[in-house]
């Protein structure tokens, strides 16, 4: 009830103006631009984090280096930090008064950077325990059978990590789709350029266009559900053992 009731309310609200109204709201040029930007940036960010997250998990599990525990703790920072604080931090670091001399505020790169930051821990934390539990002898067996380290990683390690990577990446994707706090400041919310879906929804509420906000919300919702369904199907296919 706690989950389904609000969902039903949003769906109901989105069709206040009939299906026609829903379609008009969703297909407005600004809404389409916001959704498209959100989708494209999220896919790119998740792809990067799937690779980087796996790499970081690998280093954290397999390598010994001084300060490993500190690094491990820092990975969780984006989880612990309120997203608006992350937004402020990013703006201070990469905004107009950047101490690094990098000003990417109000650009799509800025949006991507914010999303990269807040979704970083998902893949790392999903892959890490699986990698820890992975039977090292499988890798030794592969190498004694003549496999190079690269082949061993590709044919032995990666297939065993895949479910965890997919799970982590889909959580990261869901998060990126709806991210608001960390993006709202650095993106500048320029319509057609840097305005993401969540910020667009917020703006519509401000403009008293509740139906439009609800309609775009429903699209995001549908995307998330679609993702969940496909991930669970992927999971089933991989676990026919």
């Amino acid at each position: 009830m706690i989950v389904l009731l609000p969902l039903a309310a949003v769906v109901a609200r989105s069709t206040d103006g009939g299906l026609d109204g829903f379609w008009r709201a969703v297909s407005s040029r600004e809404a389409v631009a916001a959704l498209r930007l959100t989708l494209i940036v999220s896919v790119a960010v998740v792809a990067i984090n799937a690779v980087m997250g796996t790499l970081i998990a690998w280093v954290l599990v397999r390598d010994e280096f001084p300060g490993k525990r500190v690094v491990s703790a820092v990975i969780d920072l984006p989880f612990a930090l309120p997203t608006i604080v992350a937004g402020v931090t990013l703006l201070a670091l990469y905004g107009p008064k950047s101490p690094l001399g990098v000003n990417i505020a109000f650009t799509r790169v800025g949006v991507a950077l914010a999303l990269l930051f807040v979704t970083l821990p998902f893949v790392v934390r999903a892959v890490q325990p699986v990698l820890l539990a992975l039977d090292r002898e499988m890798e030794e067996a592969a190498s004694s059978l003549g496999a190079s380290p690269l082949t061993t990683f590709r044919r032995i390690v990666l297939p065993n990590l895949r479910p965890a990577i997919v799970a982590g990446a889909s959580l990261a994707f869901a998060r990126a789709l709806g991210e608001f706090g960390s993006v709202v400041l650095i993106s500048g919310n320029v319509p057609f350029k840097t305005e993401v879906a969540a910020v667009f929804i917020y703006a519509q509420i401000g403009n008293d266009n509740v139906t439009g906000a609800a309609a775009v919300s429903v699209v995001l919702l549908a995307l998330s559900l679609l993702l969940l369904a496909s991930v669970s199907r992927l999971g089933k296919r991989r676990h026919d053992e």
Partner: protein
Amino acid sequence: MAIEVRGVSKRFGDFAALSDVSLTIPGGSLTALLGPSGSGKSTLLRVIAGLERPDAGSVSIEGRDVTRAPARQRNVGFVFQHYAAFKHMTVRENVAFGLRVRKRPKAEIAKRVDELLALVHLTGWADRYPSQLSGGQRQRMALARALAVQPSVLLLDEPFGALDARVRAELRDWLRRLHERIHVTTVFVTHDQHEAMEVAEQIAVMREGRIEQVGAPAEVYDRPANEFVMGFVGPVTRLGERALRPHDLRLSREPVKGARQAIVERVVPLGFEVRVELRAEGGEGLSAQLTRSQAAALGVGEGDLVWVRAADEEATRRSGRGSDVSATPQASAASPTRG
């Protein structure tokens, strides 16, 4: 010589896993590395396989110095205690892995895999996943996988250690027959002296990172190099200062010159044999092993008084009485697996 290990040492932190170990393994032989846990036997096997790098010494396989070669260039087959099955691959894909890595033609791979699956009796299981197999089947799959690449040596690390007793006995037997058929130089690690005696042609007994003795099973059993080997490869009992096999004790109901007096504490029937636990005058415990008929002839029970001496003193101190019973006249070379 198929495998030549010279002066190999390996430390893990403060722990010396191997100290200056040298070992020669003849081509086509079936050798057991036998020792208690922590004796370095698995480390030695892993050094031969290239899964551990020795701190000192050299390893050569079929005349080629492979000390610096990584595992994948040594052409060894390795079988792990816990199978190390590739969980995400079917049985067929597991067995084919080494051949696919070597980029053999598809038809050749399919043919070879079929042969191997037949060899390990898994023909009907080719499309299953390892999680659908029993432990014994998984280990046979692992063996087929290791043999697929026609290794110059086959190394097995406690291959039957994770299996229950019945399957273990079956697989031991099967391994020995397999070896008779394909004659690949084989080294296996075990802590079970029965297993070593039953399967191997040559046994290397290890302790604390060193090799204590290398020899045929009967040799190691009958002429152990020291007390450790003696104790490890079979049961030992003490008679005064001497350590000897329980079946080398002679019991008599009548006083015998030079024999020690002892009280029977327990008579334990072990099927074909009977173990008689004794307490000597000084309070020390010892145990003798007799066949069932010998025990019946002697007719001892708990609380009886007997005289004990070593079998090899018998000739000189023979009392000549009917009640004198010798434990095992066949002196064990033919059946070293008792105890």
